[in-house]
């Protein structure tokens, strides 16, 4: 992967000036490259990685294994896109193995997610079955540890 993308994936808030320093480049060149990535759709957006466990909000998240009947034209794509369009659905992947689609779904409570699955997802033509697993606690998300990291115990000056 391009070094600029690696740095942005690590910290999307880094300023173009600092990115240019790290990459031995110029601020203008970095800005132009980022604009290119945004235009071509390589970069789809910038989000904060939030540890929702620490917030006093009602939020439950579930992963749902979905088995579907592939269609003659387009395979899994049409159904996957249909599933993706629901605002309750955070992410969707096509999977190898014993099921076809994996969806991450959020809701305010267990009942809301259960309702979404039984009323909205399971009733779509072509969806054969679903299996819902609720997430209990986040330890690591997008490469970021959600638990307290150990403090820097190195000596302040060493040879």
């Amino acid at each position, binding site marked *: 992967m391009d*070094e600029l993308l690696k740095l942005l994936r690590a910290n999307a808030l880094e300023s173009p000036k600092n990115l240019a*320093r*790290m990459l031995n480049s110029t601020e203008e060149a970095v800005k132009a490259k980022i604009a290119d990535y945004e235009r071509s759709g390589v970069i789809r957006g910038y989000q904060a990685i939030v540890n929702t466990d620490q917030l006093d909000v009602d939020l439950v998240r579930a992963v749902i294994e979905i088995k579907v009947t592939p269609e003659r034209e387009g395979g899994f794509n049409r159904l996957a896109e249909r599933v993706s369009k629901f605002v309750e659905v955070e992410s969707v992947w096509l999977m190898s193995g014993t099921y076809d689609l994996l969806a991450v779904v959020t809701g305010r409570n267990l009942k809301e997610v259960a309702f979404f699955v039984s009323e909205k997802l399971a009733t779509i033509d072509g969806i054969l079955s679903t299996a819902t697993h609720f997430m209990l606690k986040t330890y690591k998300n997008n490469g970021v540890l959600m638990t307290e990291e150990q403090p820097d115990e*190195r*000596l*302040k*000056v*060493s*040879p």
Partner: protein
Amino acid sequence: MNGSKSRPEPIEESRPVTGSKPARRFVAGYLNDIPRSGIRDFFDIVSARKDVISLGIGEPDFVTPWHIREASITALDRGATTYTSNRGLIELRRQIARYLWRAFNVAYDPETEILITVGVSEALDLAMRAILEPGDEVLYHEPCFVSYNPEIRFAHGVPVPVVTRRENGFRLTRAMLEEKVSPRTKALLLSFPTNPTGATLAREDIEGIAAFAKAHDILVITDEIYSELTYQGERVSIASVPGMKERTIFLHGFSKGWAMTGFRLGYACAPVELSEAMMKIHQYIMMCAPILSQKAAIEALKSDFDTNEMRASYEHRRNFICAGLNEAGIPCHVPNGAFYVFPYVGDYGLTSKDFALRLLDEENVACVPGSAFGASGEGFLRCSYSTDLEAIKEAVVRMGRFVARLRKG
């Protein structure tokens, strides 16, 4: 420690060994001539302060990669709590032999030419003790790691520094060595990439140095501890130059490239006669390196993924700090290795020690004065960028502010 004083006390170049007089008469006389490390003095001063941004740390800021730690934990779980053979676990020596062939194109026999040690520090001590007769001279380039000079003297050798300069990127060339060689010169100690300058050597320089060693029948000891942190160009070890292996002791370890400083694991590779001589000392003084560290090292050598990832991260930070310091008007060459920059701060009428003390006092940024790395380090500051990028950003701002104030007078 000076916690009660408001101003840090100045660093003494050679503080006498303290203690009651009667006990002092038992201490070997030659130790009194060897000063305490300037880094240790500075450490005492920095430790007494709060909220310091430290660019003074000479070790990786990564925790050892998890799979390596996990291998050590598994070994402990399975009861690996014993001695190993004096030379170290054969599986580790075989892995090292494969790694050295892959990375440096040098071939060492794991049965007879590789010795696992407690850090490169032990390996270097073994090498010095194995080769030096009292009065033998050892050439080494300066500025350099603080231990080289004392380690030569502990083995009753005579250290002969060869000064490298900023003007040519702290390179070492044959011509510079020819000026210092004498009939008593027994060995040449190389350490590239260099702590504190970050300098590396080009192949032509290494070939010139190899020709020098052959012409004067000198042994070369090469400390390759930072070699994984070489940013541009090929990694060349002098041991790989044809005809050099027979006159080279190759030292390496896991502290820097794999972020394993606390495991204290290194190794020495040398032709069998030299290896046996070092082994003789090692078996009596150390017996063997800790088994848990050896188990971790076996795992560490299984892939290059960790070292490559860490190198990329250091490289970004190196580029950042060099650009930042130069923009702030602190001239800083771009070093090709290790994780240090060595900016020049000699234009303000301050010694590097005073510069570092005032920087600490006024801006709470800790850097190590260049003079801690030999007299030729005077006028420079060692800044380690093996620390969090956010801390580096803030340090660069503060250093820029500090020199702007100095310029105004």
